């Protein structure tokens, strides 16, 4: 017997919300970025799983995951550049310190 | 000259003056002042001409309530907004009042040194709003000018005021804006039901009144909105609290214009828009507002009795007097309403005089606290005699304008024979006693009696005040020429109405003939 599709979805759900937890709870910008990666990966799993289980003869899910990975890579590169820049300016990379756009 | 152009002159002249003022260098204060005086004189002359012309044109048999009506399309098409002008006896009286108060206001602000040009620019803007409001008979245009008149208040008080001026300016503007929010709803409501099903909607007051197509259910909703909206500006209890703070902080001429003219916009609007366009709901709901305004009358008078700031006393007295205006309007008959308009006129002149005098006294003593002043009659007899005259006008002495108005109101109000009306009319009558109390309290305390905190050094009087341990000597003097011009102008107007009230009373009453029919 094979595991049902729900098993895979449970894993992706848990991973997604682990990422969400990290995103909300982390103080460190790099930590938040990592949480975002987790979320994106959870989504990727979903894409792939649905592709595999529901439309085994199509490629849409996989291709989308591929693009997500590409975009995620680009995004993390830019994000890290920004983080480094912020650090240079503020000597700190906790989210609470970035407030100059407030008020 | 077409009617449109003629009446528009009241708006155009201040506008032209604004342009001229704008072009003048701001350090040439003398030129600015004389320009203002000249322009205001032109407006006064126009108002006088309008009055004479109106009296000439007016014919008791003429079924048209408005004269000199004309209209120009503004937003064409579905909205049907016009710039429509026209005057009846009531608005002529109001325009005359405004013109007098504006010119005396200019003289009362002669001594403003700080940002003179900007001050007068805003002052002109205020008068544009006021005149525009009184000449227009299109609800949209009316509302537009209404807002134009309100906004400069904020800056005039906030910039040139005294004391807790930011707070006062904010409070005044917010409360009046709150009122105009109600008002806007009301106006849109009126507009929405302004014509029978299938016809073009209109903002024109005359047409709306003629169509009379609003059902009682809708009137019930929109009448209180409109009435309260204007009532806020008319200082109706319990929406009057902007008045004491606002007046106390405003510069002299602004207080004059505000209490003298702007508050009349409220009463005028209540009458012109709320009551005549929605007479059925008015009859039905009048009792609520009679209670409120009846409270205003007595409440304001009692409050004024224990205030210590001269301007607060006058602000509360305005609440009382303006309450009487709305109260009389709600009596819904020709006599009382004529009285109401006369009361607007009289109160406008008298309060303007009061605020002018308080400003002149304050300008020298730098205090308005009546506990800190005394015996000024010996120091500045001219101003003090004027103050006594203003006080006597306020407490309704025959021969001055207040009496005429009050008597017309009381006689008119007494036409309602039921206990409810009787009770409130008699309560209103008590206000004439209470008015005497607070007026004489001030007169006795600051004008009469021995000198208090005043030193005489070599024929010159000085007001001695202590501030933070330092002793200040402020030189005291009697009125100078521009102050005399301002006060004499107002006193003459007050006495003119008081001594021969017939012509103006007939002029107003003639235009109010229709109310007996309308509210039957």
């Amino acid at each position, binding site marked *: *017997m*094979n*595991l*049902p*599709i729900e*098993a*895979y*979805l*449970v*894993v992706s*759900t*848990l*991973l*997604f*919300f*682990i*990422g*969400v*937890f*990290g995103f*909300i*709870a*982390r*103080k460190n910008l*790099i*930590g938040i970025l*990592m*949480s975002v*990666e*987790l979320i994106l*990966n959870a989504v*990727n799993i979903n894409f*792939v*799983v649905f592709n*595999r*289980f*529901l439309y*085994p003869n199509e*490629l*849409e899910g*996989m*291709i989308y995951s*591929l*693009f997500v*990975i*590409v*975009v*995620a*890579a*680009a*995004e*993390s*590169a*830019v994000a*890290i*550049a*920004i983080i480094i*820049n912020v*650090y*240079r300016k503020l000597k700190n990379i906790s989210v609470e310190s970035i407030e100059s756009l407030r008020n | 000259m077409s009617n449109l152009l003629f009446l528009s002159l009241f708006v155009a002249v201040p506008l032209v003056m604004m342009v001229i003022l704008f072009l003048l260098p701001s350090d040439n204060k003398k030129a600015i002042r004389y320009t203002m005086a000249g322009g205001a004189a032109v407006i006064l002359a126009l108002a006088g001409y309008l009055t004479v012309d109106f009296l000439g044109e007016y014919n008791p048999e003429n079924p048209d309530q408005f004269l000199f009506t004309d209209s120009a399309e503004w937003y064409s098409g579905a909205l049907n907004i016009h710039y429509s002008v026209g005057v009846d006896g009531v608005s002529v009286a109001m325009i005359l009042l405004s013109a007098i108060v504006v010119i005396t206001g200019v003289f009362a602000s002669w001594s403003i040194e700080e940002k003179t040009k900007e001050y007068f620019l805003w002052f002109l803007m205020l008068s544009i709003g006021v005149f525009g409001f009184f000449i227009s008979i299109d609800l949209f245009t009316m509302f537009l000018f209404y807002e134009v008149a309100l906004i400069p208040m904020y800056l005039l008080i906030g910039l040139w005021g005294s004391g807790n001026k930011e707070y006062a300016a904010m409070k005044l503007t917010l409360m009046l804006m709150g009122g105009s929010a109600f008002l806007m709803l009301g106006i849109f409501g009126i507009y929405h039901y302004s014509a029978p099903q299938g016809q073009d909607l209109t903002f024109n007051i005359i047409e709306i009144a003629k169509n009379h197509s609003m059902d009682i259910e809708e009137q019930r909703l929109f009448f209180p909105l409109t009435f309260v909206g204007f009532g806020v500006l008319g200082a109706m209890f319990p929406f009057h609290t902007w008045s004491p703070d606002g007046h106390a902080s405003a510069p002299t001429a602004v207080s004059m214009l505000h209490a003298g003219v702007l508050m009349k916009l409220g009463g005028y609007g209540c009458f012109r828009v709320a009551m005549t366009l929605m007479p059925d709901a008015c009859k039905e709901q009048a009792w609520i507002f009679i209670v409120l305004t009846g409270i205003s009358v007595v409440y304001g008078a009692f409050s004024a009795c224990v205030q210590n700031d001269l301007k607060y006393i006058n602000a509360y007295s305005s609440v009382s007097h303006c309450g009487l205006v709305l109260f009389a309007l709600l009596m819904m008959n020709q006599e009382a309403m004529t009285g109401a308009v006369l009361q607007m006129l009289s109160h406008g002149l008298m309060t303007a005089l009061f605020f002018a005098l308080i400003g002149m006294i304050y300008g020298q003593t730098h205090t308005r606290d009546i506990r800190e002043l005394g015996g000024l009659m010996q120091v500045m007899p001219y101003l003090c005699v004027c103050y006594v005259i203003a006080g006597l006008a306020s407490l309704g002495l025959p021969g001055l304008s207040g009496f005429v108005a009050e008597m017309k109101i009381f006689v008119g109000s007494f036409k309602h024979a039921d206990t409810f009306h009787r009770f409130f009319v008699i309560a209103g009558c008590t206000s004439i006693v209470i008015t005497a109390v607070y007026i004489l309290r001030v007169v006795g305390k600051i004008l009469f009696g021995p000198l208090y905190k005043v030193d005489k050094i070599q024929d010159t009087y000085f007001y001695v005040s202590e501030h933070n341990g330092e002793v200040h000597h402020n030189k005291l003097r009697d009125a100078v020429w521009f102050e005399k011009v301002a006060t004499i102008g107002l006193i003459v107007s007050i006495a003119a109405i008081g001594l021969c009230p017939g012509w103006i009373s007939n002029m107003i009453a003639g235009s109010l003939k229709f109310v007996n029919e309308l509210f039957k």
Partner: protein
Amino acid sequence: MDFDFIDYLTGQNIMFVVLSAIVLGCGLMSVLSTKILRAATYLFFTLFGIAGLYLLMNYEFLAAVQLSVYAGAVVVLLIFAIFLVKNLGHETEKVSCSKKGIAALASVLGIVMTLVIVFNEGIVPAVVGPTAPQVDMQLIGDTLLGSGKHQYLLIFEASSVLLLACIIGAIVVATKSKEEK
């Protein structure tokens, strides 16, 4: 239906459970660890586990991309960033309990919600189990570079432009400006 545990004890399933455990365990550790460097390391394992899951579903190409891009590039980038930021590797992050609590609450709520939906939806898979024929590399190439129906040349090109923009942007942002020097 009678639930028979033995029926599920296939290599495929065992592998899935192991990989899931790695993914979830390491993911959780990654968000919970107070030291950022450790978090990055856990993240690496998570991504690795996910690549395993892809393999399990016979998407070798995707697994390879996952490994090379994520595990190879992104995590390395992160670690570089951590080192570039002074002392960050040694700092412990203190997060207030209430913040954690709120985050946990939101997450748990979300999990419950999602799972309820997942199990109530009654998804009927077209195939039973993840095993399916491998995807032909040529097919992937055609799909990515073709311009017909279900083909993604345009997006491919767009993402390449995106990457270019990112490279330039990252350089611009990260370069010290002249005044700072």
